[in-house]
């Protein structure tokens, strides 16, 4: 209950803080915000009667601060604490340092190419998710994703390419490596990624990085690499110590559940 005398206690800046109003949640007085000083108007140029050209000055007068620009939201900053990679640099993505974050320029220029080097026959499967949350898989029998006209991911044998011009349409992807022989052991080798600026990222596939699950009859899948587009930058992570037997389980463990499967190893076309 406030009386008339308590209603007016002075100017908002100087009046004491009200603590008798139970509904008043915010006790602290908001800090005064400095209003940016409007620049002094430029002195009118003297117009010589004969000369046709005007010496108009685009720069603000000396000493005046530029007016605050309303409505400009800066781009969100990239994730901090993740190592980048330089042009022409060669980096091994080990279990201790598996992550690399590309800059926005590196993520937008050129394409990301991956090549699998193994001693035994092996195949590459790339699952991806687009910005509109549709998921798809690219494999030998279906080498273009999502379609062959503007493929975001393209696979040719042991080589795959991610079209970074369409990086904004892509949300994430995962690269899985499988032996050609269904009964064979997990693939040993190295997955090499190259960028347009000749940076080289190498991901060793060591079968001893095992975390086996699943029935013995299923084919072994090794998840080698995940890529996420975060705020316009591509974050690549070498996935060590992940070997799940059926392809369906391997992809489901990474959140790719929007696919249809004929059986645990065979995904439906598309």
């Amino acid at each position, binding site marked *: 209950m406030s009386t008339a005398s308590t209603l007016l206690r002075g100017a908002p800046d100087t009046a004491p803080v009200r603590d008798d109003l139970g509904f008043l949640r915010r006790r602290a007085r908001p800090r005064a915000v400095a209003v940016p000083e409007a620049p002094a108007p430029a002195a009118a140029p003297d117009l010589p009667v004969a000369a046709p050209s005007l010496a108009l000055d*685009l720069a603000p007068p000396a000493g005046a601060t530029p007016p605050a620009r309303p409505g400009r939201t*800066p781009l969100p900053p990239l994730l901090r604490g993740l190592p980048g990679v330089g042009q022409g640099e060669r980096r091994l993505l080990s279990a201790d340092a598996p992550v690399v974050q590309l800059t926005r320029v590196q993520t937008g220029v050129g394409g990301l190419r991956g090549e699998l080097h193994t001693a035994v026959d092996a195949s590459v499967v790339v699952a991806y998710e687009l910005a509109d949350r549709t998921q798809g898989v690219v494999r030998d029998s279906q080498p273009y994703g999502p379609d062959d006209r503007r493929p975001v991911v393209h696979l040719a044998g042991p080589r795959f390419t991610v079209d970074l011009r369409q990086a*904004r349409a892509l949300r994430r992807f995962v690269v899985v490596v499988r032996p050609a022989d269904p009964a064979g052991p997990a693939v040993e080798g190295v997955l090499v990624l190259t960028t347009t600026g000749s940076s080289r990222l190498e991901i060793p596939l060591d079968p001893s990085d095992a975390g086996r699950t699943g029935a013995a009859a299923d084919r072994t899948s090794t998840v080698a690499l995940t890529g996420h587009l975060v705020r316009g930058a591509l974050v690549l992570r070498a996935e060590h110590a992940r070997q799940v037997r059926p392809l369906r389980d391997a992809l489901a463990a990474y959140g790719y559940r929007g696919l249809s499967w004929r059986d645990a190893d065979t995904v439906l076309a598309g």
Partner: protein
Amino acid sequence: MAVNLSKGGNISLTKVAPGLSKAVAGLGWKPRTTDGAAFDLDAAALLVDADGRALSDRHFVFFNNLQDPSGAVVHQGDNRTGDGDGDDEQIVVDLAALPAEVVRVVFLASIYEAEERRQNFGQVSDAYIRVFDAEDPQNDAKTVVFDLGEDASTETALVFGELYRNGDDWKFRAVGQGYASGLAGIVADYGLAAA
């Protein structure tokens, strides 16, 4: 009538458009022949310092980085706007808000994955760049146009033109410089790592 520049020519924007504070660079082109592969032409802008290098990789404004840190240069994306009749892509430059270190704003376009798709600027016709006043877009008298003609053939990226400081003035120069090394080549030329 719009002012037409020839290659290498330059003009003072304050003379053409007195009171200009926000300029729009509109780039346009027509793909002439393709073999069915998608033709991806992307406009971009580089904010360059006095040494001829981009200030940082955040000062390369393109489809994956639509504005620079100061917010002065904003890429309008792939969409056509009603105001830019015929422009395929537009980049808005707030001249007063450009940082003092920025001496030039270079406008370029590149064909994405040109080598892989075997495309080049020889397959592009009617390429042009025009600079007009954002606040008076329909006024032809305040517009500067540079038609690139059909010079470029094997190049996969092209610097169309640049805005540059001349004392307190801003001028526009028609460049038309092609790069056979594509966007990666231009970016490297201005000191950025394409990694």
